[in-house]
C-alpha cells in the first residue's frame, strides 16, 4: 500500500517551540510559552482532507512557512497513529469530517501526545471562530500554542477553503449552464415543430414569458417541454 502521508520540507524540526511549555492532563499550561519569535521554528501542520485537491491547495498556501503533511482517506486508528507519528502543532480539517470525532479523542490521550490537542475555538474570539466555521474549516492546535502563532495558518486555510468553494461553485455553474442550454434548445425545437415558429421566434416567445413571469428561462423551457409533450403525446 502506498504511504498516504506526504511529508514536505521534513527534516530538521525535531522539537517545536511549544515543547517548552509543560501542560497538565487537564490542559492547563503550567508555564507560559516564552515569547521568542526570532528563534521560532516553523509550525508542523497536518491537513486531513478526503478531497485531495483541496488538501493540495491548502498545502501550497502553507508550504513556505510551515512543515506540512497531508492525509487523505485515512481513518480511525491509522489516522491517530499518523498523528502520534507526526506530532503536528496544528491540524486543519473539514468541519463536517467524521474524522473529527477521532481527532477530538486526542484531547486526553496524553500518553501518545506530549500535549493535548484542543479545538481552535477554545483559543480564539467569536469573530475568528465564525470566519472558520463559515468557511467550513475546523482546526485543532496543541494546547499552549499562542493564538498569534496559529492565526496565520488558520487564515491561509480559511482563504484556501474559500478558493476551493469558489472553484467548485464555478464548476457547478458551468455544468448548470450547460444543462440549461440543453433544455432550452429542446424546448425551442418543440416550439418550432409544433407551432411552426422560426428559431428566433421560438426563443423570443420563451424570453418574453420568462420576463413576464419573472422566472428563469430554463424553468420556462421546462414547462414548455412538459406542456408540449403532454399535448403532443410525445417529445
Amino acid at each position: 500500500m502506498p504511504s498516504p502521508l506526504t511529508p514536505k520540507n521534513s527534516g530538521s524540526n525535531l522539537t517545536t517551540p511549544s515543547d517548552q511549555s509543560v501542560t497538565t492532563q487537564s490542559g492547563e499550561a503550567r508555564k507560559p510559552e516564552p515569547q521568542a519569535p526570532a528563534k521560532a521554528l516553523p509550525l508542523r501542520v497536518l491537513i486531513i482532507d478526503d478531497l485531495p485537491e483541496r488538501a493540495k491547495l491548502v498545502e501550497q498556501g502553507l508550504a513556505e512557512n510551515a512543515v506540512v503533511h497531508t492525509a487523505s482517506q485515512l481513518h480511525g486508528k491509522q489516522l491517530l497513529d499518523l498523528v502520534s507519528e507526526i506530532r503536528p502543532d496544528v491540524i486543519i480539517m473539514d468541519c463536517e469530517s467524521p474524522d473529527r470525532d477521532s481527532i477530538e479523542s486526542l484531547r486526553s490521550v496524553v500518553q501518545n501526545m506530549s500535549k493535548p490537542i484542543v479545538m481552535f475555538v477554545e483559543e480564539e474570539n467569536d469573530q475568528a471562530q465564525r470566519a472558520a466555521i463559515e468557511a467550513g474549516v475546523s482546526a485543532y492546535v496543541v494546547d499552549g500554542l499562542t493564538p498569534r502563532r496559529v492565526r496565520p495558518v488558520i487564515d491561509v486555510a480559511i482563504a484556501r477553503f474559500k478558493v476551493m468553494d469558489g472553484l467548485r461553485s464555478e464548476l457547478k455553474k458551468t455544468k448548470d449552464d450547460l444543462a440549461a442550454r440543453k433544455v432550452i434548445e429542446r424546448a425551442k425545437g418543440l416550439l418550432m415543430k409544433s407551432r411552426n415558429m422560426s428559431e428566433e421566434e421560438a426563443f423570443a416567445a420563451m424570453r418574453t414569458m420568462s420576463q413576464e413571469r419573472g422566472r428563469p428561462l430554463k424553468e420556462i423551457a421546462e414547462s414548455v417541454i412538459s406542456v408540449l409533450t403532454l399535448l403532443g403525446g410525445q417529445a
Partner: protein
Amino acid sequence: MSPNTLKIGFARLSDCASLVAAKERGEFEKQGLTVELKRYSSWAAMRDALANGVIDAAHMLAPMVVASAAGLGPYPNLFTTSFAINLNGNAITVSNSLFQQIRDIAPETLQQRPHLPTALRTIVAKRRETGEEPLTLGHVYHYSMHGYELRYWLAAAGIDPDNDVKLVVIPPERVVDSLARGQIDGFCVGEPWNTAAIEAGLGRTLITSAEIWSNAPEKVLAVRTTWSTQNEDTHLSLLKAMLTASQWVDQPENRLIAAQMLSLPNYVDMPVSMLSPSLTGRDVQTGGVLVQNMPDFGIFHRYAANFPWRSHAKWILAQMVRWGEALDDVDIESVATHAYSTELYRKAAAELGIACPTIDEKLEGAHSHAWLLDAATSPIAMGPDLFMDGKIYAPSESGKAETDAESETATNVK
C-alpha cells in the same frame, strides 16, 4: 427566523426513531412547529452546529451535554437538556477471530449473562507477555455512554482500559469498515452497526449495554441553555411533540413501522432487516449467540425514559472523574442541575397528562426487577436499573436517605 421553525440535528442511528416519527407522523405540526431534520455524520460537527445556532436542537450523546456543563471541551456551559430520547441500545461486538479466542479459552463464560470479559483479560495479558500489540477497541466519541460502558465492562474484569488495551474513537458509520479491515478488534457502538457487523459475517456481539447497566441513559435532546430560556414556549412545544412521538415509538406494535421509516434514504438509509432487531428486540445477539427476544433492548418512553434524571447526569460525571477527564473536586450538584433541566419536562408532561416523576434523581443499581415509582404525579412502572457488578450508585446523601425505604430491594441485589 420564526421561533416555530426549527432545525434539529440527528445521527444515523436506530435511536433517532422518535425524532423521525415526530416528523413523519406530524407531531411537530400538531404543536405548531415546522421542523427540518438535518443529518450529521460527526458528533463534533453536530455539537458545533448546535453551539453556533445552525441547528436549534440535537440528538446528542448524553455525556456531551454533561461535558459542556462540566466545562470540558470547546463549548463550556452552553448546552442543556430537558428530554432524554432513549435508554439502552448499544452493544459490544468483537471480531470473529477474537470471539474464537474467547471461546477457546473460556467457553463457559459465553453461557453466562452478562458476559464478563475474563477470557479477554487472559488474552490481554498473553499479548503483553509475548510483546504483541495491545487489542484495539473502538467506541464512538470521547464523551459517550459507549466509552463509559466499554470501560465499565473491561474494568469489571480487571482490565485497565487506559493501559491494557488501546481505545480509539471511530464514528458509528465507520466501525464496521474498521473491523473489516482489521484495524480494530472490537467496538462498542449503537445500532444498527452491531447488527451490520453480524450480518456481514465480521463479528459477534458479546454483550448488550442493557446488561452492563439496565436502562442506562443514551441520547438526549440537547439545546442551548440560552435558547431554552429565550424560547421557552417553543421548547415546551418541542418537548410535547417528542413525548407523543416517543409514546408511539415505544409501543411494540409500532416498532416495525418505525424501522421502515428509519430505512428511508434521508434518515438511517439502511435495510429494514438491519434496523428491526434493535427496534423490535427480536433477533438480537449477545454472548455471541442470537437471543430470540430482548423487548427492553431499546426504550423510548416507558420506565419514565424521557425524564432527564439528574442521577444519570451525575453517574456520567462520576465516570468522567473516574477516568481522569474531570477533576474530582468538580461541583457535581451544579453540573447535574445545569446539564439536566427537569422543570420544562414536568410542564410538558403535565399538559399532556403523562405521569411524571416528582423527584429529580433516584438510586441507580438498586432494582433487579420491575418496580413502581411512587414519587410521581401518578405511579410509574419502572424497569430494572442493575449494574453488571451489582454496585449501587447513590447520586447524593439525600438520595441515599430517600431510598432507604427501598433498602430491602437494594440489599437483596448483592
